């Protein structure tokens, strides 16, 4: 026994123990939600939308918002023109958001090469964000009744030749309003950040969206790959939401709330260029995280209310949603709970931790194994980043907690190690902030990737969520920090 506060009076002590146990219990919710999600993925082998598809090849308008995308547009449009899809049923509309680079010249050349099939729409006043740019194109496209389906994509993404028809086949089912594809990190850069993103996309897109297909509710159509029926676009007002930083998630929710299904097609593969540095990644993910905080407030009437929508308002969808959004809170409470229990009754803390530790271990194993199995080609390239996703320190903590005899000195007084283990859950979050700061210094740029491997990509995402809470609480301006694209995706 190393109890620091053993002499508290009985009732007060019991109440504190109860509170700390509740904290630990709350912290277990995201872990259990994660486990449930990964257990749902294999069900996709039998519960999917393939039996309800048909050979449907509608007239597809591809809408590409572009602001200073000269470096990537030629490759993207050429790939679109080479899609394995009837050429007379495919038109590309690039909305140039008042670009100041060579985008207009690049588009003029492309429009000449593909007359009638590539259209350049220019906004003279730009900088209002992606949603406004999309709406400019939508107005033009909806004014003509040629379009039967609309594909919204990003300027840098590259579609595999068969991907579009693999998406349109789901639209044969009249209950489907939109389809999204599997976006994969496309540069296959060997830098740590890019490899982590590669694994993150596997887990968040290829794996998690399969679970959402099974659960019957989709959280978000990928911004770079969303195919809508004309009917769906008209039903949701013919416009993209401009009030939040997560316009793609709002579109996804509106589609489902208007009575249509959203389907994920895992075999329609799309390659995207992702940030190559921690700071650029932080800005991109902060925008996404702030968007999710905004959505949570915007749809507060929906959560855990099946009467509003059977999928989005369902218990499991709500748990999945809040498990990610509240993960930093859960980590903080778990740490407080374990450290508090340790100070009151170290044996009880050890029993609780010992009994509970195998749950995150099992969840981690399921996360890594199921994620690699959904796309083994990519998964086997990023297996190290998969194992180190929670960070090398957390990985060592998990191993040490699962197999205590492996920890040197655990037989003696290990209070220092124990307190470190209990508090690292929350300490890793401020450490992630430091890693970002490190990258911004001249001398720290080379050390930052090592810091990322030590602290982990997962804790960094938690730190970004915390940053999103703070920025939303302070009412910080919603700036559209565009990710710089260099055309690294050429696969």
């Amino acid at each position, binding site marked *: 026994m190393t109890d620091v506060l053993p002499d508290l009076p009985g009732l007060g002590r019991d109440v504190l123990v109860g509170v700390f146990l509740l904290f630990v219990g709350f912290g277990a919710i995201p872990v259990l939600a994660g486990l449930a999600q990964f257990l749902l993925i*294999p069900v996709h082998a039998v519960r999917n939308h393939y039996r309800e598809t048909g050979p449907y090849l509608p007239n597809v308008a591809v809408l590409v918002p572009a602001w200073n995308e000269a470096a990537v547009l030629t490759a993207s449009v050429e790939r679109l023109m080479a899609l394995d899809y009837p050429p007379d049923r495919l038109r590309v509309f690039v909305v140039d958001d008042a670009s100041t680079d060579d985008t207009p010249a690049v588009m003029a050349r492309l429009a000449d090469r593909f007359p009638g099939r590539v259209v350049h729409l220019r906004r003279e006043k730009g900088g209002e964000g992606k949603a406004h740019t999309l709406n400019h194109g939508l107005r033009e496209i909806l004014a003509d009744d040629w379009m039967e389906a609309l594909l919204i994509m990003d300027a840098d993404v590259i579609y595999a030749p068969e991907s579009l028809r693999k998406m349109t086949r789901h639209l044969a089912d009249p209950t489907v309003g939109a389809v999204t594809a599997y976006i994969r990190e496309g540069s296959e850069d060997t830098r740590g950040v890019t490899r982590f993103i590669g694994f993150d996309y596997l887990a968040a897109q290829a794996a998690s969206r399969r679970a959402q297909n099974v659960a019957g509710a989709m959280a978000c159509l990928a911004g770079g790959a969303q195919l809508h029926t004309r009917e769906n676009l008209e039903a949701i007002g013919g416009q993209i939401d401009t009030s939040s930083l997560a316009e793609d998630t709002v579109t996804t929710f509106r589609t489902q709330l208007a009575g249509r299904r959203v389907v994920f097609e895992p075999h329609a593969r799309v390659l995207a260029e992702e940030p190559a540095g921690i700071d650029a990644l932080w800005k991109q993910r902060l925008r996404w995280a702030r968007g999710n905080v905004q959505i949570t407030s915007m749809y507060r009437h929906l959560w855990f209310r099946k009467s509003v929508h059977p999928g989005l308002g369902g218990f499991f969808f709500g748990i999945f949603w809040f498990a990610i959004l509240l993960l930093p809170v859960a980590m903080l409470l778990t740490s407080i709970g374990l450290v508090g229990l340790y100070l009151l009754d170290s044996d009880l803390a050890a029993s609780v931790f010992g009994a509970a530790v195998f749950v995150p271990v099992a969840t981690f194993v399921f996360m890594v194994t199921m994620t690699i199995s959904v796309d083994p080609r990519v998964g086997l390239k990023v297996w190290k980043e998969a194992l180190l996703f929670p960070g090398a320190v957390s990985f060592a903590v998990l191993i040490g907690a699962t197999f205590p005899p492996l920890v040197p000195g655990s037989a003696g007084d290990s209070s220092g190690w124990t307190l470190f283990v209990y508090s690292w859950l929350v300490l890793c979050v401020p450490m992630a902030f430091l890693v970002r700061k490190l990258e911004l210094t001249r001398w720290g740029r080379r050390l930052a990737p090592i810091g990322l491997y030590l602290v982990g990509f997962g804790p960094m995402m938690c730190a970004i969520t915390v940053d999103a809470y703070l920025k939303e609480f302070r009412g910080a301006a919603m700036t559209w920090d565009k990710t710089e694209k260099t055309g690294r995706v050429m696969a």
Partner: protein
Amino acid sequence: MSRGRTTSDRAAAAVTANLASRPYRVSPPVVLTAAELAARGGVLPVWADPMAMADETEVDRLQERRLYAGLAAAIAVVVLLWTVRALVM
């Protein structure tokens, strides 16, 4: 706030029911001229052949079964870790 269905929720449910009763969407058949076919080396593209598209879908559907292998591997690793932990504790 009432937790019952609102008018718009009922309207969405009605849309779902209405859509489900509709026939499947179909697109006009693709007509490939002899010149277009020749430009493709005489090979009929998948999109011009509804049977080939159906076969492609079936391949994708069957490929989803590899998720069972991921599940089996995950269970095996968890059981292995549990066993080792039980032995060393």
